[in-house]
């Protein structure tokens, strides 16, 4: 093994990686915004009695859950502009692909959580005359949010990692900047290790928090 590690070039270009990280975080943040809101709406649609609401929601969820994220990103990139004659900023497409993917996964998380809302709560709502939107807002949503919290957070970090895929369609995120730097400086080991460490440093604390929350839930249930 005659390889000598040299982190000099990586340190020198840390600002580039920083800019890439900001793009990654922006993608993740916006995707989570879509995922958390649209996901809940889709979860409600999944439980709707009317097929007009239920079927499109089911189709959307299954499509996004049963195909690779890579093809979703690539599809949004190359096909949406052609099909809908829509030429917008690449970031918008990235956010849309990742956001809808996250919405599909979150919808499942919400659905499971809504199912865990005890039957009695609904009876109580009926007794109190709470129906429709106020029942959703004041009873179902708080319950579902609490129960779904670990899953939603896990999905949220997963999408941070999946956001690395946009590098393949040339959005300058952390992965892309890392790839560029590795090729320019001919120092793949150092660069990719630092990039991996950055991803890890952001994911690990959140995953630790999720574990804490889950342990607490387990204890409360026990």
């Amino acid at each position: 093994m005659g390889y000598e590690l040299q982190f000099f070039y990586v340190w020198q270009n840390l600002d580039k990686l920083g800019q890439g990280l900001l793009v990654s975080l922006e993608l993740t943040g916006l995707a989570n915004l879509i995922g958390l809101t649209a996901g809940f709406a889709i979860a409600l649609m999944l439980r709707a009695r009317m097929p007009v609401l239920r079927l499109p929601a089911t189709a959307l969820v299954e499509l996004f859950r049963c195909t690779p994220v890579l093809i979703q990103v690539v599809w949004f990139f190359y096909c949406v502009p052609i099909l809908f004659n829509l030429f917008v900023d690449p970031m918008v497409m990235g956010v849309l692909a990742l956001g809808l993917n996250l919405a599909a996964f979150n919808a499942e998380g919400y659905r499971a959580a809504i199912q865990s809302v005890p039957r009695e709560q609904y009876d109580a709502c009926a007794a109190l005359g709470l129906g429709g939107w106020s029942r959703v807002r004041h009873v179902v949503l708080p319950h579902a949010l609490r129960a779904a919290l670990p899953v939603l957070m896990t999905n949220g970090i997963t999408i941070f990692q999946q956001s690395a895929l946009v590098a393949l369609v040339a959005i300058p995120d952390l992965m892309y900047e890392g790839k560029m730097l590795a090729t320019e400086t001919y120092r793949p080991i150092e660069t990719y290790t630092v990039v991996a460490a950055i991803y890890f440093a952001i994911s690990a604390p959140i995953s630790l928090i999720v574990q804490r929350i889950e342990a607490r839930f387990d204890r409360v249930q026990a």
Partner: protein
Amino acid sequence: MHFDPTIPFKYWDALLIGLGTSLRLTLICLAIGIALGFVTSQARRSRLMPVRAVAIFYVELFRGTPVLIQLFWIFYCLPMLIGAEPGNFISAVLSLSLYAGAITSETFRAALKSIPREQYDTCRALGITGLRLAIWVVLPQALLRAIPTLLSNAVALFKESALISAVGMADLMFIGSSIANRTGRPVEMLTAIAIIYFTVAFPLTRIVGRVETRILRRLAV
């Protein structure tokens, strides 16, 4: 634009070869990953601190970084470090297996948690310890409880396998997008690949639900 749904059918044989590569890789990595995952889940419960620490570090590292960078690292950095070229297929198997091991170890961990404390007490009373305890008592039960999640892991692995196209391996994604580029027909080709992935993954996810209810019923008895 003019949409021609017959285009993907012209290249069906190439796509089929790609799908074959994707499936073969998924199955190999799944088998290795499940073995690795079970060992890791046991290591996480070890009494020795270093063993536990290594297992936790491995799992968190592979779950806490993008699969894409794991692939890049193993494809481009590992050969430089070991001074030898393991070849594309080995590299792909290595990286996806390590990823699969990390995610299945979490599955086993959850399954192990659900094995009642009394089982361990019984084993201790019967003098069953160590490896025999792991293989004859823990493994069968953990495996049974873990089956639904392992199936989901298999679907996840199949989907993640599309990433190997980024390092130039001729899987379904790679072949499909190459044809899309050559023919200038991204809409038809990319949609076709998506449908192929879907037709493999969707039935599997349906099976997960069915298996889950059956196992739950069996465990309840």
